[in-house]
């Protein structure tokens, strides 16, 4: 910075010397930071080279979320206008950008306060924890008290020539690159001449351009009503970027919003985005941050209930979220507690955010189902935060939860119930917040279980107050089953993205032993629970044993019959055999007697004509006399 000539006593500053030193003094880190995606196209030498679109150079604002909606920050070396009614945060916006540039990128800046005492502005900045004093000492920041004293008399037209000359000298002295004109309208209104006011604004604008300063101008408009801005209606046309800030009350909750009306040469978010002035400065709630999409996890996270994990085929995927719906008393908090306890058991950091219920009460209640969060709480592994819903708008709650997550760095978060967000500020804002919260956790790889109260008791009416069920990865529904004078808790899984899951309605049982899901008992096409289930189970048991007895009886009878039959068969066979033997004996006896009678006859014949027969017999048996063998043969025949 030694190169800056001390030009305070010469008016030549505004010419070449000034311009070049402004350019040169842009620190390299800042240039890198703001121009990392704005490389100048290479010289168009080759005909094949297509001229790439040149990206606008930007300056990061350091305001969370704002760089997202502006696509990288404010236009570098150009003019940005912040407009808004009282209390919209114009000054804080400008101041934070200035302080952040000075503190984080070493880019000096000047703050010209037209409305507030510059010291007060600096003091206010200190309340955000910004060390303005140090920056002032280091000549990184300079406050110009441009607050017109009340006793100043105006007698005729004036212009900003002198002021700009003074600022020019100051800027080159400290090497300022950013200059804020806070509430320029206060000074301009003194002119009391629209034409003169416009002229001075253009003078300012040209001055900024000439010295290649990044200008931030804030101006009041009354409540954003059309017409009141007429006086400075040309301002947005003049500026390269214009942001409209509003503050309004929706359902008792004040909501601040920012909307980029225009941004020359840069795409940007057109919608109104909510923002909040938190303890550390502004935070803009934007959903469309260009965050790298996280790699989805493959591992599963236990819900803390083994049977529920089984129903989900192993638990929830890490980094996803589960919505737990149910009317009051269905046991949402218990399940959330089980989930958190399981996380702590695995040694993972966890965060339990409860709305409208004290942390200690929850710990006590969970102890009734053997969920002990106390050790994890003591060790700091778990942090429980009870939030009063009435205390803030949903936007503020979101910011707070975000901060808590940043502080605790949990891997598992339970929010009970998320629907409480909608209590102040209306459902629409709450839904946006819920969505952002879900996306944020998903990007951070945090597994979230959030409960949502269902109004009414009709389990068929499965709409959540926030309508977040569409963005939830898993949806577990808790309900009551009213059957025969009993109210039983029931659990079913409505959806579980990317995973198979049970379709059964299971009875949820809270007992001293913990939380369990009863094995599904179905009978006659119905799922039974409670006493009915016991009764049905008993009934079926009697029926079964009766049938078994009957079958046993029948079996015995058959067996007996078969035995009998076997006996009969045996007897019949024995009888048959006996008879066969008898027959055999008889047959043999009969043959013997027949043979004997033949012999007798032979004897008689021989006696009558013995010679003839002997001759015959001899020739038949080759001369051999008829032996006993022949006799035997004849007998057996």
């Amino acid at each position: 910075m030694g190169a800056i000539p001390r030009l305070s006593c010469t008016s030549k500053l505004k010419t070449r010397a000034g311009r070049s030193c402004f350019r040169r003094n842009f620190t390299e880190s800042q240039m890198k930071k703001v121009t990392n995606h704005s490389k100048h196209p290479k010289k168009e030498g080759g005909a094949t080279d297509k001229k790439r679109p040149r990206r606008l150079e930007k300056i990061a604002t350091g305001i969370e979320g704002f760089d997202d909606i502006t696509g990288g920050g404010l236009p570098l070396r150009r003019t940005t206008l912040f407009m808004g009614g009282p209390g919209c945060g114009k000054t804080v916006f400008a101041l934070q950008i200035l302080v952040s540039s000075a503190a984080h990128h070493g880019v000096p800046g000047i703050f010209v306060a037209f409305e507030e005492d510059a010291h007060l502005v600096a003091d206010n900045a200190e309340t955000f924890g910004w060390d303005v004093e140090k920056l002032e000492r280091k000549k990184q920041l300079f406050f110009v008290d441009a607050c017109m004293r009340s006793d100043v008399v105006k007698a005729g037209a004036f212009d900003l020539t002198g002021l700009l000359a003074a600022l020019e000298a100051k800027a080159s002295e400290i090497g300022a690159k950013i200059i804020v004109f806070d509430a320029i309208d206060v000074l301009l209104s003194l002119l009391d001449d629209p034409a003169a006011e416009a002229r001075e604004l253009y003078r300012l604008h040209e001055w900024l351009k000439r010295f290649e300063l990044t200008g931030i101008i804030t101006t009041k408009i009354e409540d954003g009503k059309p017409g009141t801005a007429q006086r400075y209606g040309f301002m947005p046309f003049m500026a390269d970027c214009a942001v409209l800030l509003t503050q309004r009350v929706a359902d008792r909750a004040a909501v601040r919003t920012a909307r980029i009306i225009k941004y020359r040469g840069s795409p940007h978010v057109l919608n109104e985005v909510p923002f909040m002035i938190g303890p550390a400065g502004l935070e803009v709630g934007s959903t469309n941050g260009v965050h790298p999409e996280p790699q989805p996890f493959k591992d599963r996270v236990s819900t803390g209930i083994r049977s529920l994990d089984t129903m989900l085929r192993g638990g929830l995927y890490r980094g996803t979220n589960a919505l737990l719906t149910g009317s009051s008393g269905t046991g949402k908090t218990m399940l959330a507690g089980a989930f958190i306890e399981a996380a702590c058991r695995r040694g993972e950091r966890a965060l339990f955010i409860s709305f409208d219920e004290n942390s200690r009460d929850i710990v006590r209640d969970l102890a009734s189902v053997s969920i002990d969060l106390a050790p994890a709480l003591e060790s700091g592994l778990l942090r429980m935060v009870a939030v009063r819903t009435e205390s803030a708008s949903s936007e503020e709650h979101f910011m707070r939860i975000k901060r808590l997550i940043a502080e605790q760095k949990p891997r598992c978060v339970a929010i009970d119930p998320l629907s409480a967000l909608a209590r102040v500020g209306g459902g629409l804002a709450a839904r946006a917040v819920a969505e952002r919260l879900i996306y944020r956790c998903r990007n951070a790889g945090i597994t979230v279980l959030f409960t949502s109260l269902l109004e009414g008791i009709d389990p068929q009416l499965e709409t959540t107050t926030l309508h977040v069920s569409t963005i939830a990865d898993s949806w577990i529904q808790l309900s009551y089953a009213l059957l025969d004078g009993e109210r039983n808790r029931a659990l079913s899984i409505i959806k579980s993205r990317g995973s198979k899951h049970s379709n059964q309605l299971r009875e949820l049982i809270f007992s001293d032993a913990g939380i369990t899901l009863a094995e599904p008992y179905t009978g006659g096409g119905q799922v039974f629970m409670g006493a009915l289930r016991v009764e049905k189970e008993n009934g079926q048991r009697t029926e079964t044993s009766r049938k078994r007895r009957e079958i046993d009886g029948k079996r015995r009878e058959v067996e007996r019959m078969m035995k009998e039959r076997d006996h009969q068969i045996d007897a019949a066979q024995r009888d048959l055999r006996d008879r066969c033997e008898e027959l055999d004996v008889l047959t043999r006896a009969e043959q013997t007697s027949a043979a004997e009678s033949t012999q007798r006859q032979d004897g008689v014949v021989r006696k009558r004509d013995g010679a003839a027969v002997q001759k015959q017999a001899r020739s038949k048996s080759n001369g051999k006399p008829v032996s006993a063998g022949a006799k035997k043969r004849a007998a057996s025949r």
Partner: protein
Amino acid sequence: MTSPASNQGKHPNGAYVFRLYLASGAPNSVRALANLYAICRKHFPDSHRIELIDVLKEPLRALAEAVLVTPTLVKISPEPELQIIGNLSDEEEVLRSLGLPQKDSA
């Protein structure tokens, strides 16, 4: 840069001492200078002193002395100090703020 000062004595409170911050060459500043000379000549021709400060030449001085716009006229004496901004074409307003009778020129 000091304008020709005249002798003091006519005004009961002593001489009027003015300091005019201007941007040399800017129309409003040129007009303010002319108007200031005219008023002084007319109302206290013998008891005024005018100090001119060119903000373009001494830019940091203006900042240090809480001068924002040009032209700005500061009445240093008589007490109390008074700041008048503008090209002083509203003579009536200037005179009123200086505590002088307004229609005496007639």
